[in-house]
């Protein structure tokens, strides 16, 4: 998310599992009086905002593509809104107390609470005063149903918020193997059937020792960067 010449206040927002192909993912401000208090980033890769997953699209090369109008804290309300508490909390197992002071960056482990608003996939709330404005507009894909009079990025139903993208794939178990390490000869894998009705396949004595499960979706560690810098 790129804040450009804005005065937005982002409160208790979480940027989770964004992908960066260039300058990074997360929250970046430029010539902006935006404040983050506190805003957390989890599972995002990269150093600066370049690509962020939004409810109705994926923005590629989003650097300078997102402009938040001043006053993002005037969110439209509704379930899952970006103005809601994301219930993104520091993992109690950290054994430490959260609360980095302003101007500092602390690395900690964060988790979502089950009732997090990000679990809400949709809302009928009106559009937020926020839409992508691009200097590279050719990278934006406008859905065909959208009127040119509508702010780009504004859905006909629902608005931006702390949603989880419906475009993300369901996690599937795509492969499983039973692995044995045979001394200096190395690893020998036997494919395990994913079909419960398939014939048994681990013939080696003493059963499986190590199972390798491959999923369709990568694992995002719950490590987060909590940046409380105030601008």
């Amino acid at each position, binding site marked *: 998310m790129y804040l450009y010449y804005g005065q937005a206040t982002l409160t208790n927002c979480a940027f989770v599992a964004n992908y960066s192909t260039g300058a990074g993912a997360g929250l970046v401000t430029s010539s902006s009086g935006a404040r983050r208090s506190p805003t957390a980033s989890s599972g995002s890769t990269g150093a600066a905002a370049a690509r962020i997953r939004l409810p109705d699209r994926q923005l590629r090369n989003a650097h300078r593509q997102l402009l938040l109008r001043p006053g993002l804290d005037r969110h439209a309300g509704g379930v899952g809104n970006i103005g809601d508490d994301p219930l993104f909390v520091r993992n109690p197992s950290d054994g430490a107390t959260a609360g980095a002071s302003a101007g500092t960056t602390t690395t900690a482990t964060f988790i979502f609470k089950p009732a997090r608003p990000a679990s809400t996939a949709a809302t009928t709330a009106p559009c937020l005063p926020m839409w992508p404005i691009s200097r590279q507009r050719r990278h934006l894909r406008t859905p065909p149903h959208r009127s040119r009079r509508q702010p780009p990025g504004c859905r006909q139903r629902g608005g931006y918020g702390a949603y*989880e993208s419906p475009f993300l794939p*369901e996690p599937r178990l795509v492969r499983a193997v039973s692995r044995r390490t045979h001394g200096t000869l190395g690893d020998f894998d036997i494919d*395990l059937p994913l079909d419960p009705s398939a014939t048994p396949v681990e013939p080696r004595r003493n059963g499986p020792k190590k199972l390798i499960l491959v999923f369709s979706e990568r694992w995002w560690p719950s490590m987060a960067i909590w940046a409380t810098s105030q601008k």
Partner: protein
Amino acid sequence: MVAVDGDLGDKSEVTLSGGTLNAVSMTGREMTVEINGVPDRSCLRLSLAGWWTEAGVRSPVEASWYARPPR
């Protein structure tokens, strides 16, 4: 995919029908489950639960395999 409790090391996300679960780890899309003590000629059922993805909490995943074919 993220462990709901934020910790894979506690092994609470993986349940076995037999044997002993020693360790669970995950790198990228690969989860490694280290076990021992699975009896021969038994069916091992592995269940995964207590995780969520970017798209929300998912139902438990189960898979089962035989440890040596029954004769």
